[in-house]
Structure formats: structure tokens, C-alpha cells
């Protein structure tokens, strides 16, 4: 009997060790800022964050950064008539969508880089055909420069127009994970199913950070 209780104690200890909390890194640029707290000078780190934005979604409703306050979200860049990497990306993003469907703490934000063709009604049709309803997964469109700027400067995803490409656009398929403080916490290759599975796991890790 005594032996069994020792065994139980040991397993308990071991499992508590294994539950050491996992944390995602904070990506992007950072700078030290000196602050004065209680008369003492301390150095604080300011991380790169997503700035305010204003786009139009598939329901012709204005979407701003405030719609993503207090949630973690995944951002990507695509266009509806794209037959290169976008179908692969959104086939994978559907897995993320279904994994966190009806979880109000998780959202998806897909930016169209084809502002001329991808009007709200075109994006609405696309979303419907993809099997996406409600506003957990937002498809947005906005002025060309604003979308391209936020992609390159803030989400660190490279997109460009290229007349030599048969589809006129060259872009990267990153899925970028943003936390509640709007900091970059992960970037995953949206065309790679293994990395997307990692993203699905990492979203839960990120959500756990806010449980305490």
C-alpha cells in the first residue's frame, strides 16, 4: 500500500513538471524605452504592433482594428481569382476556421490584394462558396496602398503587383498570428499542412496565456 502511494506521489510530481507552461515568442522589431517608475528609471520593451486600419468586408461593413480588440486572430493576404497558392492557403485556413468555429476569442482576417476586382459582393460569393458564414472569418478589401503597406510593414508579408506574372500578383502565403495586444506571435506557411497544424495548436497556447 505504501509503495502504491509513493508511486502515485511520483507520478503526480512528474506530471506537474511536464505541464510547464509553453509560451510563443514575440516577433517583429522592438525597442527599449526608459520609463520612470516610483522615482527609478527602468527600461521597458516596446514591441511592434498592428496599427489602426479601416477596410470594407464581405458584407460591405467597415472593419477596423477595434473589431479585433480582445481576440487573437490570424491574418493573411489573397485574392479571389487567384489559382496559384490561394486555394491551397484557404483549403488549409478552413481547417483553422473549423478548429475554432464558434469560439468568440478567435478570428480570421483575409485581406484581398486585388482591390479592383474583389468588391464586397465578389468576396461574399467567395466566402459562401468556401462554406464560411457569419463574421468570425472576415474578408476585407481597401485602398491598394493601405493594404500593401500594412502587409509589408506591419504583418511582414511581401506582396507586389507584377505584370510578368500570369496572374499579375506575387505574394507570400504566410498566416500571421496576432495576440490581444496586437503583437505578432507567429508566422506559418499557409501552403504547408504541417505548419498549419502547428498554428492550430499555437492558437490554443496563446489563448492559455490569457486564462490567468
Amino acid at each position, binding site marked *: 500500500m505504501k509503495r502504491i502511494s509513493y508511486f502515485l506521489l511520483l507520478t503526480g510530481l512528474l506530471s506537474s513538471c511536464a505541464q510547464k507552461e509553453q509560451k510563443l515568442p514575440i516577433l517583429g522589431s522592438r525597442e527599449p524605452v526608459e520609463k520612470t517608475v516610483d522615482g527609478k528609471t527602468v527600461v521597458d520593451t516596446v514591441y511592434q504592433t498592428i496599427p489602426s486600419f479601416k477596410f470594407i468586408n464581405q458584407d460591405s461593413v467597415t472593419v477596423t482594428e477595434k473589431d479585433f480588440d480582445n481576440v487573437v486572430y490570424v491574418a493573411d493576404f489573397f485574392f479571389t481569382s487567384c489559382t*496559384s497558392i490561394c*486555394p491551397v492557403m484557404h483549403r488549409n485556413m478552413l481547417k483553422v476556421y473549423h478548429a475554432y468555429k464558434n469560439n468568440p476569442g478567435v478570428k480570421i482576417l483575409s485581406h484581398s490584394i486585388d482591390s479592383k476586382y474583389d468588391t464586397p459582393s465578389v468576396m461574399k460569393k467567395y466566402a459562401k462558396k468556401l*462554406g464560411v458564414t457569419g463574421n468570425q472569418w472576415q474578408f476585407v478589401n481597401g485602398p491598394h496602398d493601405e493594404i500593401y503597406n500594412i502587409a509589408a510593414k506591419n504583418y511582414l508579408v511581401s506582396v507586389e503587383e507584377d505584370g510578368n506574372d500570369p496572374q499579375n500578383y506575387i505574394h507570400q502565403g504566410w498566416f500571421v498570428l496576432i495576440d490581444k495586444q496586437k503583437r505578432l506571435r507567429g508566422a506559418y506557411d499557409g501552403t504547408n499542412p504541417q505548419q498549419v497544424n502547428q498554428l492550430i495548436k499555437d492558437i490554443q497556447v496563446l489563448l492559455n496565456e490569457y486564462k490567468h
Partner: protein
Amino acid sequence: MKRIITLSLLLLVCITIIFNACQSQAELDYARYYVNGKGLYEAHCQNCHGEDGKGLGQLYPPLTDSLFLKRNRTKLGCIIKNGLSGKIEINGQEFDGQMPAETQMTNMEIAQLVTYITNSFGNKNGLYDVNAAAADIKNCDK
């Protein structure tokens, strides 16, 4: 005893090799078309239609409707070469999108691709050779 076992094993291996070498010309042709077709599928079709041919939602139709593929086998080459738009019904579901044209594809490439597609994803329609492709492509406008 041990020697007999070794010898008989060796004999078995020899027989297998000889039999495999005797694969018929038709089977060889089929295998060659199929393998090349798979490469073409991955490069030109897989993004939308998927690795498993299941398509994507109502955006891109699946290639698993064996009845559709069997009935329209002579039209597949034209669809690949000239693209497709307008409504079609696949597996009882309506699709109304636009498939881009692959005008640069040769008859041989089309034959390989059709052989691959119509013998994958639950389809089993055998070889579709370059002569069949050439004849069907000629009739595209008709």
C-alpha cells in the same frame, strides 16, 4: 536443408524479375502516361482541385464524379485546353466558376493528364493516348 531453402528463394526472385520484365507494352504505356500525368496534375491542377481530387467547397469542383468523367471523357481535353465557365453539375452539386485555359498544353500532355485524372480519385477508365487526344482536340469547337 538450408541450402534448398536458399536456392528456392533465389529461384522465386528470378521468376518474379522475369515476370515483371514481361509487362506488356500496353501496361508500360499506361504507366508512362499515368506518371507523367501526375506531374502535370501537381503543376497545373492540384492547387484548386486538391491532392485528393476533392476540390474546395463550392469554389472548385471535385474530380471524384466518376460518372461525369466517364461520360465527358472526350470533352476533358478541350476543357483543359480552353478552360471552362458557366454552370455545371458535379456529384449533384452546382458549380459556377471559371477554370483558366491551358492553351500551351500539347496533345501528349493532355493525354497524360486525362489518363491520370480518369484513373485516380476513384476513376478507372484506362489509357487515353495521344491519338485519342489529337482527335478530340480537333473537335473542340464542334
